[in-house]
Structures are given as structure tokens and as C-alpha cells.
């Protein structure tokens, strides 16, 4: 989808002159009003499904809201108490650190591997490309719950194919090896699952972008004696930079709020070592019934994401302005 942006921008440029002429004929304000009117339905829907919940979340983060308050729909105002509690909670900072590290590692791996797959797609013959693209789409189409179940079986403690293969290949005795005892190997598996699921989108989008890179530029660079590495960094990468920025911001948004993969992989009972921010907020809200505290954690998450989204949106707007 993102790969179409350059083309879309060109189209917009082509139709611009007639629109400008029309605008000159009429009052600018009159021309804009109908456009705003047409936005109302979408704005109403967004306000209902996004704006209201966020308002509710923020309000709740200032309340003491337990099970009793949940049932009888009345919280008590406690001001910033919930925020003070989480900011003084050493576990919260552990969770934040873990979440940030998880995000950085996952985004880096997703982008690196996704780029490599995209470059491979561009180099392959049409049959192999079709095969690889089909494989990617299958991964993309796999629902998270199904993917987690499959991965869980592969790394199963007793019957998993991973332990069996490693033992057969004489990497040591992996019989009854529990990958989740050590959170580092546990998170390595979760990372593999998340990255595996995220590569198709990045690879296919970048591949679409790659097809837009003029062949002559690449040929000219290599005949000037540039290595493949040089060509990628100095020609391909700058041209596709907007796509890279958008994909990276989207990946950050997705990986920062990963929930399902961790939650389901740990059988809906994650050990403390597996708490990431989304899970911590969920546990505080729905397991411990401290909805106010859970909301405060969620608000911190939303605020962080706003920063990332800001970069993303600014990039989108700039893209529109370039042409």
C-alpha cells in the first residue's frame, strides 16, 4: 500500500491545475465547506470509537476504580495518585525497559530481514518470486492465535519438534528443554514469532518500492564501479527513505504494544519476567481489578505512541508536499 505513494503523488500533481482554476472562480471558503461537511460522518465514527474511549481512559486514570466502582459505576477522584504509584513502582520501570528493548530488537530485526527479503524478491526470476511472494502472503494471512498455537507446538517442552531436531543434530540433549524458563530464550522465541509475522508486510511494501527505482540509476552506479553495498546505501536507500521511515514507525507502533503473542505464548498466565507494558496494564486492570492504575499505565503507553505517530504523520504530510 505504502509503495503506491510516489505514484499517487504524481497523480495529484497532474490534476492540480484544473482544480486551482476552479478555485479561482469561486470563494475559497465556500469551496472548502462541503469538504468539511463530507468529513463529518468519518469524524463522528472516529470520535465514537476512538475519541470517547481515550477520553474515558484518561478520566479513569485519575480515579480510584476497583471492582465495587466497576459494578456501581462510580469512581472516587484521586488526582495524580495512580501516576505517582506507577512512577514510584520499580517493577513499572523494569517493564518499561523490557518493552523498549523488545521494541528496538523486534523493529531492527523486522526491518533488516524484511529489506533482505525485498531485495531477494527483486533479484529472483518470476517463478521463484511468485513462490516466495505466495509464502509471504500465507504468513501474512495467518491469524495471530493460529500462529501462536503452531509455534507453541514447535517449541513444546515434551513433544516439540525444535527440541527433537536439536537433539538429533547433536547440539546437545534438548529432551525436556523448557525455552521459557530463561526469559532471554523465551523472548527470543517470541521475537522470532513476532518478526516472522511482520516480515511479509515490510518485504512486500519495500519490494513495491524497489520496482519504482529507475534501473538506469542502478546501472549507472555499478558501471561507475560502486559495489552492491554502495549502490544500496547511496542510490536505493535514499530513494526509498520515506517508505523506510513509514514502515519503521508502523513497526514501532505495533511492536511497542505487542500483547497477543506474549499473552498466548505464556498460556494467558505470563510470569513476571514476561510482563511488557500492555500485559502489565492488563494484569493491573483485569486481574487485580485496579482499573484506575491500569488506565494510568495505558495512558503512558498512549502518550508514548503519540510521539511515534507524530513522526509518522509528519512524514506522510511531507510526502504529500514534496511533489
Amino acid at each position: 500500500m505504502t509503495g503506491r505513494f510516489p505514484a499517487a503523488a504524481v497523480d495529484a500533481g497532474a490534476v492540480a491545475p484544473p482544480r486551482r482554476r476552479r478555485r479561482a472562480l469561486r470563494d475559497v471558503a465556500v469551496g472548502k465547506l462541503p469538504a468539511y461537511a463530507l468529513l463529518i460522518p468519518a469524524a463522528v465514527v472516529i470520535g465514537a470509537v476512538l475519541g470517547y474511549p481515550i477520553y474515558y481512559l484518561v478520566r479513569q486514570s485519575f480515579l480510584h476504580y476497583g471492582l465495587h466502582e466497576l459494578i456501581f459505576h462510580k469512581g472516587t477522584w484521586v488526582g495524580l495518585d495512580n501516576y505517582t504509584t506507577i512512577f514510584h513502582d520499580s517493577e513499572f520501570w523494569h517493564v518499561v525497559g523490557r518493552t523498549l528493548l523488545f521494541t528496538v530488537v523486534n523493529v531492527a530485526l523486522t526491518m533488516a530481514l524484511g529489506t533482505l527479503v525485498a531485495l531477494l524478491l527483486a533479484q529472483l526470476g518470476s517463478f521463484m518470486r511468485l513462490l516466495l511472494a505466495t509464502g509471504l502472503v500465507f504468513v501474512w494471512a495467518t491469524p495471530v492465535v493460529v500462529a501462536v498455537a503452531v509455534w507453541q507446538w514447535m517449541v513444546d517442552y515434551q513433544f516439540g519438534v525444535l527440541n527433537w531436531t536439536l537433539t538429533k543434530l547433536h547440539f546437545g540433549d534438548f529432551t525436556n528443554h523448557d525455552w521459557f524458563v530463561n526469559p532471554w530464550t523465551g523472548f527470543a522465541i517470541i521475537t522470532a514469532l513476532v518478526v516472522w509475522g511482520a516480515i511479509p508486510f515490510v518485504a512486500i511494501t519495500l519490494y513495491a518500492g524497489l520496482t519504482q527505482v529507475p534501473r538506469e540509476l542502478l546501472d549507472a552506479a555499478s558501471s561507475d564501479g560502486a559495489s552492491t553495498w554502495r549502490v544500496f546505501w547511496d542510490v536505493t536507500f535514499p530513494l526509498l527513505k520515506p517508505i523506510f521511515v513509514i514502515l519503521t514507525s508502523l513497526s514501532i507502533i505495533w511492536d511497542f504494544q505487542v500483547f497477543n503473542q506474549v499473552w498466548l505464548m505464556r498460556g494467558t498466565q505470563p510470569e513476571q519476567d514476561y510482563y511488557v507494558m500492555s500485559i502489565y496494564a492488563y494484569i493491573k486492570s483485569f486481574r487485580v481489578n485496579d482499573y484506575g492504575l491500569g488506565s494510568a499505565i495505558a495512558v503512558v503507553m498512549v502518550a508514548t505512541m503519540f510521539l511515534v505517530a507524530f513522526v509518522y504523520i509528519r512524514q506522510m504530510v511531507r510526502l504529500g508536499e514534496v511533489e
Partner: protein
Amino acid sequence: MKRRYVAVGLATALAVAAATAAALTSEAAGKPAAAKITVWLHPEAKSWPGAVSAATKAAEAKHSGAQVDVQYVDWGANTLAKLDAALAAGNAPDVVEMGNSETIKYMAAGAFTRLNAGVYPNSKTWLKGLTASCQYNGKLYCVPYYAGARAVIYRTDMYRQAGIKGTPKTLAQFVADGQKLMKKFGKNKNFSAYYHPGKNWYVALSFVEDYGGQVAVRKGGKWRGTLNSPKAIRALTVLKSIVKKLSKASKTTDESHPYPATPMAQGLAASFIGNGWELPMVSDPKWGGAPKFDRLVRAYPMPSHIKGRYLPAFLGGSDLAIPVTSKNKAIARDWIKAFTTTAAERAIAKPGNIANTTKLAGIHKNNPKVAPFAEAAKYSWFIPTSPNWPKVESSLVLQNMMVKILTGRASVKSATTTASKAITSILNSNSS
């Protein structure tokens, strides 16, 4: 031109609003017309379908036009989260089954309707332990349903092949017998003489109780987590060494993922500590069992380290409550009444449970598949009676502690100290 656009936008917005409003009102209007009650039971109730259908029939007969919809929901924290959401939305079930260690949080939050004991069958002879889990500030908020204690479920054929005569009478003998089993069957690296999933905290706390420790004590109105007391540390160290010697079960799963009956049927577990209803699972193909195990699997109370006693069993049980949000409390009450009659309780007790009334005590005496569970209840323990206790369970403090201890990621001392701190802070928190 401009006006037309505005009109289109406004009309769309109005249509959306109207549709939403219509959806809301039709839902609200639909409820009182059909007097329908919803009942949430745990899946074990499928083992006494006669009692369930009889209760439904009785309630429907008493209230003409009423309908009872019995739904089966799983145990555990996820189900409670679902119940909380339903309570908040005002569409909670009219009758809900709840574990006896979970009720206190809901009673304290005012989630249950106050009940009049006299209305219900056998209320004078209800089990004391269960009745206590239904009382808050001296008032009754639920009806005891049934109780159960855990015992060792074992493969008699494997015990015989390993040359074990009779069942162990002390913990030391239990370990010695386990080592015989490991010698005989241990070639299979997945074999456990005693199958112990790491997160099974019910058994872990039974050890703590057996060695004279406690989860928490209350002094001067304040709770203090005491799992790091010398007695508790000793108990958990003993458990750790037993697990190391005898169990190959995953240290990061709990007692229902998978149910130990499955590895037992596969010959990978010679024994495990479980509830009465887990024994028939070994011979049930639905759980990977085989009918031949019907005569090969039996049970005995887990012996204590003190001769002549049993390892104190967690006195588990279930209660039935009517959430305050119910709109048909009379039907709900009559359904519970019909579901807890002596006849119904007899059916409920049949698969190895303890009936809610002492009238039916001893009905299992001659059934070797059931009697050991009732016997095991002679020595029992229960959770600290704080409205905050369910939070200790659902925030997985004990499970995490056991995983750390059994995997060796932390020493018994440091793991129990961390857990005790968490328990102290949770039990003393003032949120409901």
C-alpha cells in the same frame, strides 16, 4: 450547493446516532418480556447432567414462561475478568458458580445479592468450611455447592511393576517409592514417578502447611506474608528436592495445561496430586485416556512427613451466587434451591466430590475411587480470609514464586522473600 453538502453530512450523522440509539433501546426493551435466566457453571458440572436438568426443569415449572440457559465457563482468572466485564455492563449471569477462594472479593465489592439461608435445603447442615466462604460481615451471600480435596492419583499397575507394596504412609516412603519407579521406568526421559507442574501452588502450599508454615498471618489488623519463614522455606526446599528427583513435568505450566491425566494415560506419569474428578479422566478417551485404566487407576491421601498424618489438602470448593445485577432473582433463587437438594447433592458427590451437607458424609466409604479424596480432607487448610486474597491468586505471585524456585532461577529464600513482600502489600491494600 453548500447547504446540500451540509445536509448530507448532518443526515448521515443523524442516521448513525439514530441507529445506535435504536440498538440500545431495543436491547433494553427485550429483557423483561422473556423471563430468561443465565447460569454459569464450571465444566465439571457436565459430570452430573441429571442434577443440572432437574434444577432447570423445577425452576421453569415454578415460573411459567421462564427459561433457564446453563452455560459452561472455565475456571480461572480469564473467566473472572469476563464476569467483571459482564457485571459492569449489567448483563452478568443470574446465577454464577465461583471457587470458594474467589467469593470474598465479590462479597466485599457488593457484587452478590444477600441471601436468606433458611430458604435453601440443608442449610443447617452445610459444610462449615464452605459456608464460611459465603459469609461476609456475618451475612450470607452465596450457597455452598460442593467441596473437594486433592489426593494422589496413581497407576496401580506401575506401582506393582516397580515392586511397591501398598501405598506410602510417610513422605519419606513416598519419595523412596518414587525412586523405585524412576529406576524401573526412568529410561524414558519424559517419565515422572510423581508428576508436578511447576505452577501447581495448591500442592506447594500444602507442603508449607505440613511443615507448620503459613502463607500469611494477621496481627493487629495487618497482614504479613510469611512464606519466607524458616518453616515455609524448609517445606519448599523439600518440595524442590522431590520435584527434582521424581518429576519431569514442565516447571512453567500449571495443573490444567495439560491435565496430568493425559501424561498418566500415556505412561509418562505414575502419580500426580489431583481432584476427585481428575481420576475418571485417565480412562476417558476425550482426555487421551483409555478405558482399561478404569481398573488400574486409584488414589490415596498424600502422606505427611509426620507419620500417621496426611499432607494438609487445600479445601477447594464451589459456591453459587446471585449477582446484584440479576433482574430475575426469584427464578435464580429457585434454580439454586433445586440444584442443591439432597438428591442433587448425592449426584454431585458421586464422581468423588464432597456434598455440601454433612448429611451425606460417608456416602463414599465403599467406593475405592472416591473414598481417598474424602479421607484426604481430614487434614486441610484454606486461604487467608482477606477480600484481597483473590488478587494474590490472579496476579500469579505464588505461581511465579514456584517457577523461580523449581527452575533454580532464584534461591528458595530470595523467591519467598519477594513473594512475601508482594503478598503483604496486596493483602493490606485498601482497594476493593
